[in-house]
């Protein structure tokens, strides 16, 4: 089966040495793939490549079997949505206006949203518990609310592929799991393919079907959370001793950092 999104031999270079080199990956419909790795390992660059924001120096991205660089931006935006780490917004758009922008790729350039578009936007906001702030300016919301509005915008895009770049950085415990519960429900119900960068390895263990461990721009491990979240692999990649145990409630791995031996 054609993967929803795939990277084949991806390499990228900001001009100071390779940031990514020879990265292969594929995400199938209905699957959540997590990308983990230390700071500077190329996770965000990978998301930008897959979104087509930057072009790979080598290799290419396939979106549902078509090369990304052969597609118009609007065509990509109808199929693929990105949730950024945060949004620097200088202008007082309301939360609902921001979510409605997710409908833009589906509408003619100057058209106003139809009743259906409003329904989709409001349903996404309700799902992420930000319906109550729809008339507030995005800049006035808390970091967590803003992040959930940005995810609601991505859902309003009705994408086939969803890329998340550490979407839970600003969130408290309840909303961290809340976001991934929503994302998982979406993948299971409508077959959306999800690729998410995660900082939190325990969250990765709880929600991802497969994990990709990046270090220094290369894939160093790839497999189920139980296969990738192993102490030797993680210690090597992150450069710190870790303890890997088992979450008694879920049976998934849990990862704890250890202090340096004294």
């Amino acid at each position, binding site marked *: 089966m054609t993967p929803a999104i795939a990277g084949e031999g991806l390499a990228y270079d900001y001009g100071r040495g390779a940031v990514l080199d020879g990265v292969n990956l594929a995400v199938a419909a209905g699957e959540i793939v997590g990308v983990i790795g230390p700071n500077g390992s190329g996770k965000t660059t990978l998301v930008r490549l897959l979104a087509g924001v930057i072009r790979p120096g080598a290799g290419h991205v396939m979106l549902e079997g078509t090369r990304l660089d052969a597609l118009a931006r609007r065509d990509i935006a109808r199929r693929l949505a990105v949730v950024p780490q945060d949004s*620097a917004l200088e202008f007082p*758009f309301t939360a609902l206006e921001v979510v409605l922008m997710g409908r833009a790729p589906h509408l003619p350039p100057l058209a106003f949203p139809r009743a259906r578009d409003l329904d989709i936007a409001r349903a996404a906001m309700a799902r992420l518990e930000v319906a109550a702030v729809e008339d507030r300016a995005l800049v006035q919301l808390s970091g967590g609310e803003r992040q959930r509005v940005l995810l609601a915008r991505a859902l309003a895009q009705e994408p086939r592929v969803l890329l998340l770049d550490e979407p839970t950085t600003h969130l408290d415990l309840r909303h961290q799991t809340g976001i991934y519960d929503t994302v998982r429900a979406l993948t299971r119900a409508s077959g959306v393919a999800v690729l998410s960068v995660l900082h939190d390895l325990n969250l990765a263990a709880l929600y991802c079907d497969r994990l990709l461990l990046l270090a220094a721009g290369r894939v160093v491990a790839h497999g189920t959370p139980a296969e990738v979240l192993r102490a030797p692999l993680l210690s090597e990649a992150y450069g710190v001793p870790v303890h890997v145990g088992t979450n008694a409630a879920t049976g998934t791995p849990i990862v704890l950092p250890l202090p340096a031996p004294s």
Partner: protein
Amino acid sequence: MRPAHLTARRLATSLLVLAAALAVTLLAATLIGPAPASLRVALAPGGEATPDYAILFRARLPRVLLAAVVGGSLAAAGAALQALLLNPIAEPHLLGISAGAAVAGVIAIVAGADAASAVVPLAAFLGALGMITFVYLGARAAGRASPHAILLVGVVCNALAAAAIMLANAIVSYTQAQGILFWIMGSLSTQGYALVAVAAAYALVGVAWIVRHAQDLNLLALGEESALELGVEVERTRRAVFVAASLLVGAAVAVSGMIGFVGLIVPHLLRLAAGTDHRLLVPASFLGGATFLVVADTVARTALAPAELPVGVVTALLGGPFFIWLLRRSLVRGMA
């Protein structure tokens, strides 16, 4: 509290209200002035021969209409540039774009063009476009032009342009220098309907072009990467809006000299009142800017009558403090 999103109905109502305000202002400004003139006398049978007619329809009305077109052009250009540069304090005058238009206009005049000919607006348009491109590329680093860098490059370009104009003044003949000075100082007075028509044509094309890209501007205001991810052809939009804003600024400078701050004050106040959606903000800025400059020019020609203030003085006295207030606010919020 305004509704959470823009609807066609609210767009229409808002623009109608602004258009009505502009119409009333145009009428009032035509009737106000140091010399008394009666509309009834001017419009009576045979009124065309009366001094009232000459004052109202040959002196004041073209001036009032020109103020409206220039004010509207500058405000619409300001709104568009602010979205494009992700910078709520961008303004054609502050960024040196008006100065770029002025330098090109001066070069055209020095080369022998008549200041009232159609060559000067064309030169001013090219000068504005050149300067926008230069400021943008000069401030851009690592794929992004930071708001502060844009302002700094703009300030330097302003200084360079001022030096270029002084240089031109120093090397040309006395009469040519007088002509340049007169053109630069700018004035909305002693202009005929022909010039109004030229400026209006540029304004119409420029505003229509920006409005065509209004939804892309909304998406761009979320940041360049977000815009790309939402399907905007960012480079194409940027080029189109740069050209359209240059048309507006170039024509405004060519017919009225350098008038600052209209493009800052008007879009900002409208954003507070009507929201940020550029499908409304851009045409609303045109109407609001027109109203604003007509009022400012009426103040300029009546406050010290019979002496006349340059209208740029009035807008700068209002706009300077306003700019500093905006800048302070964005510094306090840590995002300028």
